[in-house]
């Protein structure tokens, strides 16, 4: 894994052009399938600018990979779907404007589950992303390419998006750091929508400090997203005896729990005050999350009509036939499944049973977090309940949905959460999730920095497959 500090060290003695060329050589030979589209010519041009002293900013000369649901002007943006396989956005997302202003070099667009609907990147139209620690296993999803390119030394920074765990899951599976910010901290302008009330764009990096720096760049006011809170972020690490709550209802299998408990007992308990917290609403969180996400998806994805952009048929037909056929051919199976289930949940007679009930659960989950975070500075749990799955292991949709059990309550409540690697089991990374109060990313990152110091040696010793 390459940190910004290491990259800058190398820039002292080598040209940015050579370093970026070397990175593309590595990506082009890679079997990870982390990228859908490369931005090679433009990246090399920017590297030359940097070498001439013309590229400035907080991220000057640093390579960054951008998840393919975040629109990039003039650079193909597919959302992992056949529906958008040739879509060239005419504008930049807010976060893309920001990283460009700070001199970052976009190296490419990362592979993802189709429309961010998945936990393994297996639903991508462009093929599965492989785990950098075991090529037969998944890199997690939906931001699988962003996680894998960091774990596999193919980028220094990455942007992901997180609707129900899509940053934290691949961060956990690929042994990197990923943060889902507070709902409203980062503008969603230019994020291709899946479930607007749940999702946020967030930073992914190889260490806590880099993750914090990228958040500083992308957070802040943008009037083009009406849910944007207009709050800035600056990282000011605090050192204190944090009060840490361990969430009783978030667990995992023996592999994951063994590692998590080892860290809790050896590091967390000896440095901080630890209490157990209970969140009774969590037994309803997973179905409530899926009902809300699917319902919003059914409405959001109605825009794909084969007329203004995206997959189209040679011949226009009558409206219903054309529209239905474009969507039959352009969407993959999981996307159809979620659109249809969302349509059902919102249809006459079922709104009260499903959608309204799910919104009530959201209130209960929010109240549980608010209560626990009144007492504690941060809450911790394993990010994922299992180690990275074998490719093809989770064939049944419901079994796959259940793997999001520890990540979705965070999105329902809109609180921020970060996943940090805490070690390895059977040669595969395990991640810990750190949850904090609204807009208190600084507390989460400060606590994460302390954990990182303790586990750094074990994380760095591990090579990549």
């Amino acid at each position, binding site marked *: 894994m390459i940190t910004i500090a290491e990259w800058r060290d190398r820039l002292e003695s080598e040209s940015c052009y050579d370093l970026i060329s070397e990175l593309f050589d590595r990506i082009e030979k890679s079997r990870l399938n982390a990228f859908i589209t490369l931005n090679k010519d433009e990246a090399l041009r920017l590297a030359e600018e940097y070498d001439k002293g013309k590229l400035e900013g907080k991220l000057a000369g640093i390579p960054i990979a951008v998840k393919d649901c975040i629109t990039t002007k003039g650079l193909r943006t597919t959302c992992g779907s056949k529906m958008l396989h040739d879509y060239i956005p*005419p504008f930049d997302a807010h976060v893309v404007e920001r990283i460009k202003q700070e001199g970052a070099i976009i190296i490419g667009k990362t592979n993802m589950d189709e429309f961010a609907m998945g936990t393994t990147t297996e639903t991508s139209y462009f093929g599965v992303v492989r785990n950098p620690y075991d090529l037969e296993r998944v890199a997690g999803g939906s931001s699988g390419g962003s996680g894998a390119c960091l774990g596999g030394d193919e980028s220094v920074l990455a942007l992901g998006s997180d609707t129900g765990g899509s940053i934290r899951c691949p961060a956990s599976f690929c042994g990197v750091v990923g943060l889902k910010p507070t709902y409203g901290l980062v503008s969603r302008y230019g994020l291709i929508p899946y479930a607007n*009330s749940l999702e946020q764009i967030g930073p992914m990096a190889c260490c806590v400090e880099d993750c914090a720096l990228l958040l500083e760049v992308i957070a802040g006011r943008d009037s083009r997203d009406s849910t944007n809170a207009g709050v800035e972020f600056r990282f000011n690490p605090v050192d204190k005896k944090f009060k840490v709550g361990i969430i009783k209802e978030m667990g995992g299998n023996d592999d994951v729990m063994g590692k998590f408990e080892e860290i809790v007992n050896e590091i967390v308990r000896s440095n901080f005050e630890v209490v157990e917290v209970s969140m009774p609403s969590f037994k309803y969180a997973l179905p409530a999350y899926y009902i809300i996400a699917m319902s919003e998806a059914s409405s959001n994805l109605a825009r794909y009509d*084969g007329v203004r952009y995206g997959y189209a048929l040679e011949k226009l037909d009558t*409206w219903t036939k054309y529209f239905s056929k474009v969507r039959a051919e352009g969407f993959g199976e999981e996307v159809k499944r979620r659109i249809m289930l969302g349509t059902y949940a919102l249809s006459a007679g079922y709104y009260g049973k499903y959608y309204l009930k799910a919104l009530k659960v959201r209130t209960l989950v929010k109240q549980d977090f608010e209560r626990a975070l009144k007492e504690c500075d941060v809450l911790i749990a394993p990010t994922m309940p299992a180690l990275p799955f074998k490719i093809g292991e989770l064939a049944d*949709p419901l079994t796959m949905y259940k793997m999001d059990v520890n990540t979705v309550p965070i999105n329902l409540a809109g609180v921020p959460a970060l996943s940090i690697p805490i070690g390895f089991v059977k040669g595969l990374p395990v991640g810990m999730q750190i949850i904090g109060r609204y807009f208190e990313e600084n507390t989460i990152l400060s606590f994460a920095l302390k954990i990182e110091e303790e586990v750094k040696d074990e994380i760095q010793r591990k090579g990549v497959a």
Partner: protein
Amino acid sequence: MITKEDVYHIANLAKIELKEEEVEKFRREFEKILEYFNILDEVPEDVEPTYQVHNLSNVFREDVPTKPMPRELVLMNAKHVEDGYFKGPKIMEG
């Protein structure tokens, strides 16, 4: 219970044409997933729903005209364009 007719009905509402061989698979999956969702029947009715976590509503901006995107950029991703307009499918038969 979800029937094949239910699946066709939902697919029609969602405007997704289904092949016959897909219908039974979706039917079985929907039945299983919806049954799992039924746990929400236990949730008490007397809880206020949360639509948006920060309870924002009606965020307004000043109504100031800005420069629109140039027409050629707006149309650049469309496959059916005529005289500088999108060309859509027919709304009515015949």
